[in-house]
């Protein structure tokens, strides 16, 4: 799920950036530092959309660095248990398949794939229904439900299922 939230961060800025572009530098650095990171609480910071407020800088003794408390708005993405996501299959193997929804990697175990879908090995491993009408392979887009998440400091890993109503392939790269 995406959230547009306000976060705060203390930015340390090197004195060489002080000047008329200070604010720009600060913002650039903020984006550099923050975007793409992941925290267990908020999930992935997708984008900084704006600066709410840049507080007064505090010069640190000794280093000359200045710490600015920056409040910024950002879009974060955090997967939740029970959330329905659409994801792109990145890898298929006999144990299931991996899919990615943005930065989140989701594993769908073969136990969580409908029983009528069987694994077909080969050049392009895939899961196919017995009548061959539905096929999950690399680059397929699937709709899945997250049943578990593991949040580490730097990544979120999810287990998903497509063994439920209205879940499964939503478009097939082969068909296109």
């Amino acid at each position, binding site marked *: 799920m995406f959230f547009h939230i306000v976060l705060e961060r203390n930015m340390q800025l090197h004195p060489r950036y002080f000047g008329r572009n200070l604010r*720009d530098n600060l*913002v650039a650095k903020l984006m550099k530092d923050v975007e793409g990171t992941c925290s267990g609480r908020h999930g992935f910071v*997708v984008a900084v959309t704006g600066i709410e407020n840049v507080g007064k800088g505090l010069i640190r003794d000794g280093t000359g660095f200045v710490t600015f408390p920056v409040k910024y708005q950002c879009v974060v993405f955090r997967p939740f248990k029970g959330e329905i*996501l659409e*994801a*792109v299959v990145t890898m298929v193997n006999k144990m299931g398949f991996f899919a990615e929804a943005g930065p989140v990697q989701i594993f769908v175990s073969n136990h969580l794939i409908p029983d009528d879908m069987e694994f077909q090995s080969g050049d392009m491993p895939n899961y196919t229904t017995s009548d061959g009408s539905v096929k999950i392979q690399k680059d397929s887009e699937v709709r899945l439900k997250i049943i578990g998440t593991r949040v580490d400091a730097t*990544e979120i890993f999810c287990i998903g*299922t497509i063994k439920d109503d209205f879940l499964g392939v939503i478009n097939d790269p082969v068909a296109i």
Partner: protein
Amino acid sequence: MARGGKHEDDYEDEYEEEDDEPVADYDDDAAEDEDYDVHGKGGSGGGRKRGRSSFIADDAEEDEDEEEEDDEDEDYRGGGGGGGRAKRKRNNKASASDFFDEEAAVDSDEEEEEEEGEDDFIVDGGPDLQEEEHVGRVRNTRMLPPHHEDHEDLEAMAQRIHERYGKQRMPEYDEETTDVEQQALLPSVRDPKLWMVKCLIGRERETAVCLMQKYIDKGSELQIRSAIALDHLKNYIYVEADKEAHVREACKGLRNIYGQKITLVPIREMTDVLSVESKAIDLARDTWVRMKIGTYKGDLAKVVDVDNVRQRVTVKLIPRVDLQALADKLEGKEVVKKKAFIPPPRFMNVDEARELHIRVENKKDSYGERYDAIGGMMFKDGFLYKIVSIKSISAQNINPTFDELDKFRKPGDGGDGDVASLSTLFANRKKGHFMKGDAVIVVKGDLKNLKGWVEKVDEDNVHIKPELKDLPKTLAFNEKELCKYFEPGNHVKVVSGAQEGATGMVVKVDQHVLILISDTTKEHIRVFADDVVESSEVTTGITKIGDYELRDLVELDNSNFGVIIRVESEAVQVLKGVPDRPEVVLVKLREIKRKIDRKMSVQDKLKNTVSSKDVVRIVEGPCRGKQGPVEHIYRRILFIFDRHHLEHAGFICAKAQSCVVVGGSRSSGDRNGDAYSKLSAFRTPPPIPDSPKRFPRGGRGFDSGGRHRGGRGGHDGLSGTTVKVRQGPYKGYRGRVIEVKGAMVRVELESQMKVVTGKFFNLGIHFSCVRFCSTWSLTWLFAVDRNHISDNVAVTPYRDTTRYGMGSETPMHPSRTPLHPYMTPMRDPGATPIHDGMRTPMRDRAWNPYTPMSPPRDNWEDGNPGSWGASPQYQPGSPPSRPYEAPTPGAGWASTPGGNYSEAGTPRDNSAYANAPSPYLPSTPGGQPMTPNSASYLPGTPGGQPMTPGTGGLDMMSPVLGGDNEGPWFIPDILVNVHRGGEESIGVIKEILQDGSCRVALGPSGNGETLTVLPTEMEAVVPRKSDKIKIMGGALRGATGKLIGVDGTDGIVKVDDTLDVKILDLVILAKLAQP
């Protein structure tokens, strides 16, 4: 047990004869009221007697009881004479009353002890009473045997005996005995000792009875106290006595006892002799057991039937029958007995047996079940049904593994599916299995399938809070009725069993079996629900066994070798060093000979040197296309670790000959200073994509736009790079830049594990990937060198910095994805942060792939110009104010992760992608990055003007450096081809305008009309040999010289000013217009 006390007997007889009635009265009282106090009352009321005598009396009673139990007829009838009838009468009373009597007696003496004082007091105070009680006292005195007074010690002994036995009996009736009381009963040094006497096997009981008889016959001459024969103890009996001599004396002459070997049982162990092991093996049907003896020793078996009376169990086993041997035996052939050989377990195939002419009978057992009987063995469904003694199986700590249980499923028919039967489950349980807060489910009884949470655990009972609201707050269950409960998605840790230590997420719950996805291996693990606990921890499980660790290269027997890919509890899985087909073996620790820990290097297919940690790509064989760092090298076999390879823990085994090095060799990087080796390295890049600069010259037109931003990174761009110290005490050392402060850098030396601080110019950049970067980087390295050689003091730290910053721009930016901002370390688990990748070509793969994560986008504004270019307001180089707040994330580079991200593709799977040469067009890897007209690269972006001093980059950058650092920008006085309106004409650049366009005078010597031409509309004329040239990029930018030779894409240039000969990329050379 034979036990005796002749004196007492004698006296007792008398006593019985004369004083039968009072005793009977006691009995009556006790029997009626069932109250011990009765006697006390009776004692205090009815008989004030001297304590001492009363003890004797009690004692007598007790002994009498014992004898009644043991051998009443013999003793009483024989010895009792006239009293016999009375005794019988007493015996005829409810036997329970005997106990009470005894108990009462015991109790009474305690009371009497207390009473003694009282007695005295009363005696003193009330002589009348004394008179009254006289009868009782008389009785007591009268009953004493005449000779008794002479035996003071006998009395004492009797008392001792009484104390001992009287109390020891108590626990039998009194269930409320406390531990402390129990402790007090333990034998002490003052007690008789227990001696172990050897006797004939099988005659233990007989021997004990003999001793008893002897005692009866001999009476007090025998000074032993008791003799014990234990059923479970063969060859020995126990004799209780004070002295060893007494035992010897008693044993003398018994034919069953020989050797006179007598050993003392230590006091501490005395209780063990007679304590009954509370094994209480609850052997029920379907319990898993293990055979303790015989051919099936250690085999798992399932209890089919239990005969508690005969102590026999019918178990179901997988037969270990050698049919051939059986057939031979049945035919009467001589069977060579090979003792060591135990046939492997295999299901019995009746047809097979018939083929071997073994007679198979069809029988029915007592339950009417059909069996196939072969030579006395019963088979059913391929299993062997065997009747064994309970003693020959063990039912504790069975811990059947899944493999074993799987085998027990009938092959073919899928089994009963009840692999994880409850019995299995309970057998595995340890104490303290349930903890508060555990989610549990009821598996037995009325409330089956009720879920809840453990609230409290006491002993076997678990109090749970049920999930359902209507139920009482807590319910108590027996431990065995509960099972831990998990739901798919739970993150758990395995705490026991073969997979102990592993963590993972539950993907399926099948009754009591969970299927997990291991966090590390991404493999399925099957475990019992009971073996796991919920946990958020992430571990690999065990990674070390003995001296060997996961990923170690080990030598196995017969010169096999392989890499450990999995560590199990007692064995390791090894991927053997057999190229082209993954061969995994499970080896025991002792089968591993040694760890191979040798640093070697071999040559790859293209004769490049490969050493460990180098990234190679497999170009031949079944694993073609895979790539990853080399973990081990041994005998020309490489073990490559590919994170994306899910099998075998990511290891791939391949011949060195079928691999090629991708990127630079880590170890060969040392040779960087050596131009020749470097060059030779450049010469052999076939599978390695060329640097963009090798592409048609036209490219540089738009390069300028993106390239320019290179300088922006400033010092920060340097941290993390590998540098080489050029001067000072650490000269020649390589290291990684940790921090940059002004002109000083702190460098962590690779070889010394320490951090040193140095000045910039002492460092030379050490790029182990120079090969890969090709000439462009080379030039740049030369530039560094030149600084050094020419002792160019004018070099400011910033100058270097910018150059480093430029490093972040090396052409081989892996261009992993256009949507850089979305790249998080997760995309590439364990990989180095992206910025590394940007800074140095292929660094994320070629270099330390295991460096810990760091913010992924250290440098993206530099490294991802393609995306930036599209949103001018982000242009860092453009001075006009930019509303940072304004842009929505979607505007500049991406919309949502779900959207474009997918289009970005998965670079790692797409090899072409990963090596895509274009750093600046990451979004179109297959695209034509060099097309000058590519609109996306319009360097016209305001601020993109790299050339113009003052506008480039951040203000801290000196304009000159800005130029210095960049690639081949157009420069005045060079010949260019101008394509405009489909025409092509040659011209000379006269001036570079602010916006990046140029004023070009047409004509080979610039005589024609002057036009303003966009950089995209022109390209520099490639100089030929001996042309005068002007250098458009690099450190020598602006210098003129003469092209004295061309070598591939490199030009050999003699610089006019210094007369130095340089090797420069042709791309940055332009023909100088002849004035």
